[in-house]
């Protein structure tokens, strides 16, 4: 199994059974793996705030959702996270590709890349920054966080960590 397939298995083992999101370039191999797996029922959302809505609806229907997104989309989804997922306490795992994490990315990622942890903190949204070695245990910790503190929880992923 390739790394993307292994990551999807980790998510499924942790009980996640609904997948949506907006494409991120750092997740290309993962998204290709998802596209080859119609059994996952992945839904491409038109924007990240819409993805938060879709994930919320899936939870209301009994599912445990994951959203794949880029950190630029986190900024777009702030209101959906703050005025829907957080206050209704909707458990959802955000798997966020972190562009601009070290200041060496293209200009459009510089400001929001540096601000991404602060944006999550501002929402009081618990998050983990896995490396390849901690990925499995960080998914387990995030899944546990969703059970003990229902609401959104994030894995903030530098390029190359999940796929």
């Amino acid at each position, binding site marked *: 199994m390739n790394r993307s397939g292994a990551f999807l298995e980790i998510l499924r083992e942790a009980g996640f059974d*609904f997948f949506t999101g907006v494409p991120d370039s750092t997740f290309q191999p993962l998204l290709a793996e998802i596209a080859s797996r119609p059994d996952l029922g992945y839904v491409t959302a*038109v924007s990240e705030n*819409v993805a938060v*809505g879709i994930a919320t609806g899936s*939870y*209301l229907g009994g599912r445990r959702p994951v959203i794949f997104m880029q950190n630029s989309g986190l900024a777009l989804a702030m209101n*959906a996270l703050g005025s829907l997922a957080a206050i*209704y*306490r909707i458990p959802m795992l955000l798997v966020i590709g972190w562009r601009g994490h070290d200041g060496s990315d293209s200009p459009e990622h510089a400001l929001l890349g540096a601000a991404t942890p602060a944006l999550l903190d501002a929402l009081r949204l618990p998050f983990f920054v896995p490396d390849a070695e901690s990925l499995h245990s960080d998914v387990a910790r995030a899944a546990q966080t969703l059970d003990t503190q229902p609401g959104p929880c994030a894995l903030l992923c530098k390029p190359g960590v999940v796929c």
Partner: protein
Amino acid sequence: MLRAEAIAAVLSKIGDELVVAANGWISREACAASDRSENFYMLGSMGLAAPIGFGLALARPERRVVIFDGDGNLLMTLGTLAMIGDLRPPNFLHIVFDNEVYGSTGGQRSATANIALDALARAAGYADVRRAVTAEELDAAIDALLAATGPAFLLVKVIAESNGTAPRVPHEPEALAKRFRAALEIA
């Protein structure tokens, strides 16, 4: 037709359908007309009524989901129409109460005086698209909508009011999510 009357007319014909109501007066008037556990009221997150209903319809294909949307709400996430027209969930029934203004913020005009949302839904690939302006048209359109194979769209043109009278939704948001899932017998 007043929006509150149109919302009450729809709810009077609802059976076991799941309802997702947009924030503002739409949720308030739905709650005042018929507060059911199978109603989910948005308090904030403007624009997300249809996305929430879409996720719900995909998660529960055996249940029919009715969205109570507004023109300002739908315009905020208009790309949602394309997503729904693409995946075509047959249990997705989308009602837009269109008063051509942003009613909850004081009545500022929206684009729908000149833009036909039902035509956009048809172009996006909704399977069943209707429009109601009078109470008689709405009565027939609700019956047709509830019997339709979706995705279905019903545009209800309503009068812009300076203010409604329905009280705020009295439930806490976490309690709304819990009672909705309990109605679906989810632990």
